[in-house]
């Protein structure tokens, strides 16, 4: 018997003009881990809510067809009864925790089932041990970090070993480390408890490796139901925006997409496009701030800084130190990504930049107004129409200047549109030279955004023409827009360098392309990776034709003599020197890296069907005269 069985399910929210789910027929076997993919508004959340019984019992609306979950027909059994067999986890852990302590939280669902105290106690202990939160059991839920809270919420969903667990973007608010940990825990729950897991995610590269199956929704309909490998092949043909960066890279160089970093790397090696050992050439790590290059950059930037934080401390009264002697200088036009774990101090740094908080020690100076877009764009929306929220020019800059938006209620916009509207609000009157922001800061702007919206936002940030500082957990997004990445830990920068330097060498704070290529050449995006591989392949072929260099059957890497970074005896270790020179000198072969990676020319449609045109229609080429 299937764990989840949907037969012709069509569901329409009350007052909605069109159904959110259309004739969905689906069978999920017990113990399967299914990833639900699709763009924003494709019906992913609604599908999960139909499985947990919230649609239609909680939301109302019209429901047609039949959904049987763990043997219960959702038309006859509401979410309360389904909760006996279905655990549910939503995006925001803050609103899912209803009691004061972790122990009570884990016990809450079990007590609602009417289990005996002994059964409740056992369920709590098992869930706590399985998720490694046993040391949190007596802690107050108000004291927990976002990652801990989400773990507790997952524990509450898993307590009592439900047959089915549905999760709606559970990692969207977590840093890469906590996100990976959560997915690891899910996988373990799937293997240990044989729980059927239905997981909706935008960042597919994170979870495809653990999935048994991928379901893709578009306009409320299932358009693909396949294994992860088949899904990637399908996405390459039919839904390029759903391709993972790794799959894009592989497609672009003519290799069949593979799931996960390890398999993708293996596929590239098998095709002779990657050295046998990825670490053969060490990636260059950004030095710690205050040393070497970082110090030189600092000196240059100081002269005409758009934003300067000088030895800033932020110490809470009777609490911890949030920022610790932090110095940071941002040049005009510079695009900086702030990365780090939850609680590293990213948001506090942005708040200092915007003057929302005062440092306990140190100084903050900006060349003009600092526009800050906080995490929740809805907090900015207070008027009844889009036109009333922001000046027309700012709306135009963010692509909301059309008449179709002017009269709409801001809260009716999609997530991505709300984000852009909030950005227009903080940009303000950009025609007024005095009011134009010198720095634009954004705090986690891509939470819950699909790839299309992230792409649009990255493009927009590249075009703003002002200093941009973005706190983000998303290395793909950081690679897409940032020239410089500052990695924070415990309130202080631990790495500060170009995006290639910082994001190519790590594991958690690295793009999928960088992880596949082992940090080679500092390539971060599929386009950069493709260009790197193609250029080296071309060099290898040219040299082979000239008879000067014989690739061995066990080909390692095309380091032909004469290329920068090589010696007569072969390749030099430390490819980044070569990479750095190549970046500085476009004459060294191949095309030069574009200043904004997002606007780099994508591979041709034949090589990579997943890429899109660099300039989106409707977006102005330059927001304001510079």
């Amino acid at each position, binding site marked *: 018997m299937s764990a989840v069985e949907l037969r012709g399910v069509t569901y329409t929210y009350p007052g909605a003009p069109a159904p959110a789910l259309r004739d969905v027929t689906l069978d999920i076997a017990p113990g399967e881990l299914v990833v639900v993919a699709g763009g924003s508004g494709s019906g992913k959340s609604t599908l999960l809510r139909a499985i947990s019984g919230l649609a239609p019992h909680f939301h109302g609306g019209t429901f047609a067809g039949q959904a049987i979950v763990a043997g219960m027909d959702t038309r006859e059994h509401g979410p309360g009864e389904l909760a006996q067999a279905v655990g549910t986890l939503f995006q925001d852990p803050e609103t899912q925790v*209803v009691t004061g302590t972790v122990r009570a939280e884990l016990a809450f669902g079990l007590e609602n089932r009417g289990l005996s105290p002994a059964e409740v106690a056992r369920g709590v202990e098992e869930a706590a041990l399985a998720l490694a939160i046993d040391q949190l059991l007596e802690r107050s839920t108000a004291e927990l970090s976002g990652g801990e809270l989400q773990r507790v919420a997952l524990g509450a969903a898993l307590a009592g070993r439900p047959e089915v667990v549905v999760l709606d973007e559970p990692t969207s608010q977590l840093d890469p480390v906590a996100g990976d940990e959560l997915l690891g825990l899910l996988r373990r729950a799937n293997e240990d408890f044989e729980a059927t897991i239905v997981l909706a995610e935008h960042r597919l590269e994170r979870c495809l490796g653990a999935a048994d199956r991928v379901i893709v929704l578009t306009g409320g309909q299932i358009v693909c139901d396949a294994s992860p490998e088949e899904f990637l092949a399908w996405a390459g043909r039919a839904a390029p925006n759903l391709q993972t960066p790794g799959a894009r890279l592989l497609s672009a160089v003519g290799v069949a997409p593979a799931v996960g970093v390890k398999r993708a790397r293996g596929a590239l090696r098998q095709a002779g496009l990657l050295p046998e050992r990825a670490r053969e050439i060490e990636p260059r790590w950004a030095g710690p701030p205050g040393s070497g290059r970082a110090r030189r950059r600092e000196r240059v930037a100081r002269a005409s800084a758009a934003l300067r934080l000088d030895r800033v401390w932020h110490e809470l009264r009777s609490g911890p130190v949030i920022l610790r002697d932090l110095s940071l200088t941002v040049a005009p036009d510079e695009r900086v990504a702030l990365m780090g774990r939850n609680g590293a101090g990213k948001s506090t740094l942005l708040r200092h930049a915007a003057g929302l908080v005062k440092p306990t020690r140190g100084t903050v100076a900006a060349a003009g107004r600092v526009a800050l877009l906080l995490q929740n764009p809805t907090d900015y929306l207070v008027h009844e129409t889009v036109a009333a929220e922001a000046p027309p020019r700012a709306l135009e800059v963010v692509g909301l200047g059309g008449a179709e938006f002017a009269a709409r209620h801001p809260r009716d916009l999609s997530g991505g549109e709300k984000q852009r509207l909030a950005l227009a609000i903080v940009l303000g009157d950009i025609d007024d030279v005095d009011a134009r922001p010198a720095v634009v800061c954004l705090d986690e702007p891509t939470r819950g955004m699909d790839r299309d919206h992230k792409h649009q936002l990255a493009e927009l940030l590249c075009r703003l023409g002002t200093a941009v500082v973005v706190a983000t957990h998303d290395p793909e997004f950081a690679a897409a827009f940032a020239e410089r990445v500052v990695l924070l830990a415990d309130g202080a920068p631990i790495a500060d360098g170009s995006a290639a330097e910082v994001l190519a060498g790590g594991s958690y704070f690295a793009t999928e392309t960088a992880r596949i290529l082992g940090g080679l050449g500092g390539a971060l995006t599929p386009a950069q990776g493709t260009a790197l591989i193609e250029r080296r392949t071309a060099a290898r072929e040219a040299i082979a034709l000239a008879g000067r260099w014989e690739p061995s059957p066990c080909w390692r890497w095309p380091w032909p003599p004469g290329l920068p970074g090589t010696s007569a005896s072969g390749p030099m270790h430390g490819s980044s020197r070569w990479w750095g020179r190549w970046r500085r000198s476009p004459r060294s072969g191949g095309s030069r890296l574009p200043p904004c990676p997002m606007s780099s020319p994508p591979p041709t449609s034949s090589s990579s069907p997943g890429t899109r045109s660099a300039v989106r229609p409707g977006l102005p080429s330059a927001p304001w005269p510079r």
Partner: protein
Amino acid sequence: MMYRRRASPLHAARAAAGCAWCLALAIAALMASNPILLGAVTVAVLAAGALAGVGRQLGRAALWGVPVALAIMLVNALVTRDGLTVILRLGDLPILGQTDVTLEATVYGAMLGLRAVALILCGLLYTLAVDPDEVLRLFRRVSFRSALTAAVATRMVPVLIRDGRRLADAQRCRPGPPPSRLALMRAACTGVLDRALDVAAALEVRGYGSARRPPAHRRAYSRHDVAFLASAVAIVAVSVTARLDPAAAFAAYPELHLAAGAQALLLAAALPAVALLPFAARRGVSR
């Protein structure tokens, strides 16, 4: 100002014992007719807070309570016509008419204010030291949904405060003139409703909708449970004795009469003693 598990005998006691003990202190504050006894109750609550590790919060609340107590005293002094010892003649005031402030009304007002402060402190001590989840478990057998609603409402307070701060920060980031208060109020209300919907959905999927009456939760009585329950009984007993004992009587009108003999002082000393005795046992206070 919310519950946090600390290593103290009061935190270690079961919620029923903690509740009963705080309630006994509140009853003592309500029953105390003698200002010495009322002062003793206030001291007992503050000392208990210090011994439970929440002294700073209680001290802060006591400071906030001083203006409240002064306001009560002032109002009583202005509106009460009883008392023979006039200390201030304010003449003919609008609304109040002929106003003479008497010593008796002032003292009685001060006592009412002190009683209010003591009750506030008792409530705060309960909030800070008694586990609300256990209280929920305690009362859910009687009225599950009401208990849960109360518990969730308590839990939502800090969430909504954080939401409010976020909204205020976002508005500070807006360039140009700030939006009208009405627009802000509307946005805040919409945000609260969104939050409420999210929490309601979370409760639904956690089985709240079909929650069954939970079975009785039997747990062996610890030394702290017994001590605080015994203390609660003793506090009420001392309070009743003091109330009935003419040696501890107090009359404000028409003239002040305060019994401050040895018996009254003994009762006043006994009250904090029986209230604080359970704090002497420090074994097994942390989980």
